[in-house]
């Protein structure tokens, strides 16, 4: 009879308060009509709303107090992101938080003192990690040459159009390094927005060619690779948290319809063919939530150790498969209505396709979990 692994799960009163506030805020400020109003806007979010979120301190939750944040850590970010996912509220929060984490974990104090206060103050930032379309290929190809000039592009840079700062993984003198690029350094037309299946999200391919990175905006050394690995795991966790919220909202949408729609003279929720898969969505969403708060617990101290890595990967693998299933069934169970753009099921099925790909799909993480758990 063997050990079941780390199954720690704690939730502080502070986290509980944050969750309650965040959920309430998102519910009130981001009803579905608001979400829909943003689908075809350029930036995909409402600046005034973002400003309110910044005032609540969310942009600085995981930024140390010394740098203008509240220093509550990733554990406090998870309930906020889950709540945003639940309301399908698109903002640059995840991108900014990841940029801050990457700087915190790899940068020097001059850099963090200079850059983090702005992020905590609501100036969006983002990370540019992907050199191709393969999250499993971590080779960095974007070159920072000897003159510290960048050559090449990154793909799927989230919220690139609104970010003031982009933290970019580059190869410099044969080593992986990070370049901090200001938005105003980019050439005209360098940002080529992606047309995403999830219309609540924004990302772009960004051409950094020709950008000059001065010494103080360059991060080198052994911490870089570790910080990049950690940031990918934190990204996976935050996408999982967001997907968990989306699954919960999707479940609510299904349940509501099953309780009101009649076919053949009966409420359709009475048919086991719809009822039992809905229970599956409930239990799967329950598991997603357990996984993300387990990971949040293990990240209380900020260190991404082996147990935390396992937790982040499990969260991502499970949460996206759950949302893929929930979104798919939401369309099907809404019948003809589900096939319309007007039905909210489309929001969830589209979000699912985005979430599954970000920071690697379920199989990507299970492959890495196998090495951590079986070897």
């Amino acid at each position, binding site marked *: 009879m063997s050990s079941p692994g780390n199954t720690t799960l704690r939730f502080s009163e502070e986290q509980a308060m944050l969750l309650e506030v965040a959920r309430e805020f998102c519910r009130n400020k981001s009803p579905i009509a608001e979400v829909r109003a943003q689908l075809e806007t350029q930036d995909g979010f409402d600046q005034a709303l973002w400003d309110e979120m910044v005032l609540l301190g969310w942009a600085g939750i995981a930024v140390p107090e010394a740098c203008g944040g509240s220093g509550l850590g990733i554990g406090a970010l998870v309930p906020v992101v889950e709540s945003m996912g639940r309301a399908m509220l698109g903002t640059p929060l995840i991108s900014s938080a990841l940029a801050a984490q990457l700087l915190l974990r790899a940068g020097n104090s001059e850099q963090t003192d200079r850059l983090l206060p702005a992020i905590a103050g609501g100036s969006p930032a983002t990370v540019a990690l*992907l050199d*191709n*379309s*393969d*999250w*499993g*290929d971590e*080779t960095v190809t974007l070159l920072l040459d000897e003159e510290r000039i960048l050559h090449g592009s990154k*793909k*799927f840079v989230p919220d690139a159009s609104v970010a003031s700062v982009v933290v970019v993984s580059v190869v410099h003198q044969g080593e992986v390094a990070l370049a901090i690029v200001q938005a105003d350094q980019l050439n005209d037309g360098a940002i080529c927005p*992606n*047309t*995403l*299946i*999830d219309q609540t999200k924004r*990302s772009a*391919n960004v051409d950094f060619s020709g950008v000059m990175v001065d010494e103080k905006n360059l991060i080198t050394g052994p911490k870089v690779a570790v910080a990049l690995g950690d940031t990918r795991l934190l990204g996976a966790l935050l996408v999982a948290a967001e997907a968990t919220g989306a699954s919960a909202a999707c479940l609510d949408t299904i349940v509501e319809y099953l309780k009101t729609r*009649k*076919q*053949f003279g009966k409420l359709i929720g009475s*048919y086991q*063919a*719809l009822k039992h898969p809905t229970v599956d969505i409930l239990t799967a969403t329950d598991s997603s939530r357990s996984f993300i708060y387990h990971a949040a617990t293990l990240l209380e101290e900020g260190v991404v150790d082996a147990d935390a890595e396992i937790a982040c990967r499990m969260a991502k693998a499970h949460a996206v498969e759950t949302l*893929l299933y929930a979104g*798919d069934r939401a*369309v*099907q169970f809404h*019948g*003809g209505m*589900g*096939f*319309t*753009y*007007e*039905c909210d*099921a*489309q929001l969830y*099925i589209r979000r699912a*396709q*985005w979430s*599954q*790909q*970000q920071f690697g*799909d379920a*199989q*990507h993480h299970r*492959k890495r979990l196998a090495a951590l758990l079986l070897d």
Partner: protein
Amino acid sequence: MSASDKELKEFRAEVSAWMKENNPANPGFLLPQTFMEVGDERQLEFLREWQHKIWSAGYLGMAWPKEYGGRGVEANFQSIADQEMRRNGVPICFNVIGLGWAGPLINEMGTEEEKAKYLKGILNAEDVWCQGFSEPDHGSDLGNAQLRAVRDGDEYVLNGQKIWTTMGNFAKYMIMLARTNPEAPRKYDGLSYFLSPMLVPGIETRPIRKITGEYGFTETFFTDARIPADCIMGEEGQGWKIAMQTLQYERGAEAGAAGGQSMVRVVVDDMISELRDVQRDGEPVLKDPVVRDQLVKAIMEERAMMLGERRSHIGPLTTDYPGSLPLSNKLRATEMTRRMRQLAINLQGAEGALYVGDDEARQGGFWQRAYFNSFSATIGGGTSQVQANIVAEHILGLPK
């Protein structure tokens, strides 16, 4: 006087050559994969021209009588033409409700007058047809249709609503199920069947935006719309029977349909071809053992469907639960398609998150759109859940 194998073979070669030569160039916009995806005028006109061209070449309505625009030859010529359309990947013959539903019905049951009036326009694509069976509150429950048709002199007055009317905004005629007698003891007996004009006062359509973001269906509203009484097919009260008859023609030219390819067939191999240059973990995704296992499952599922089609024609191999293969076909094929397309997106890597309109989206976002569109088939024509009931009750004899 049936055609010899040699004649058929020569005909196949002829059509194939014609299709190759006349297969239109990429028009620069995504073409509909099914007739349910004709969302704008540009697509409509393209497909209208293409169908007209096929008909002009003599490859549509081949088994229909010459006097109504057909060619009067055996149906197996049409089947061959249809196969070659599929095989050569040409665009669809979009006027499906006319070619496969209304047309064969008129051919079989219609008056001379009706044949002369309708058939040629169906074939040459001048008259677009639509179908009015579904209504908002009972999508899977056709027998419960409530659209009211009241006889008033030599007209019927229509009031009510239809939904999921494919190309309702483009159609000149609708085959329609309406309730002429709300008092009938069996709900089915109160229904009648009409060949209704669409372009009359009181009939209005509102395009439905689909989950894909595109159009293709309408809601259709009837408000004191008056249509000639002779638009009725058969007698009052025969609507259900005729509707069921209509559904029989779907089985192709041999069953009476005019023919023409009604949807672009997408096979698992198409997905696999598209994945050949996708990378996962820095290697071709097709080399990943877990992906390979998934793809083989998908290939097997598709192969099983095709083999089932073959087997369904072999009597001694269908004595267990006879009818199970054809009756479960819709359920199986549509569910397989949905899952396969979802898998296709997943395996694309980060690019799976792109959509129609993005230059870098694989095949222009074909698979993403195709996945969403696949629900039209798992929902329309009886949801998969209803289909499973039908198979359980009709084939296995399980209680309702």
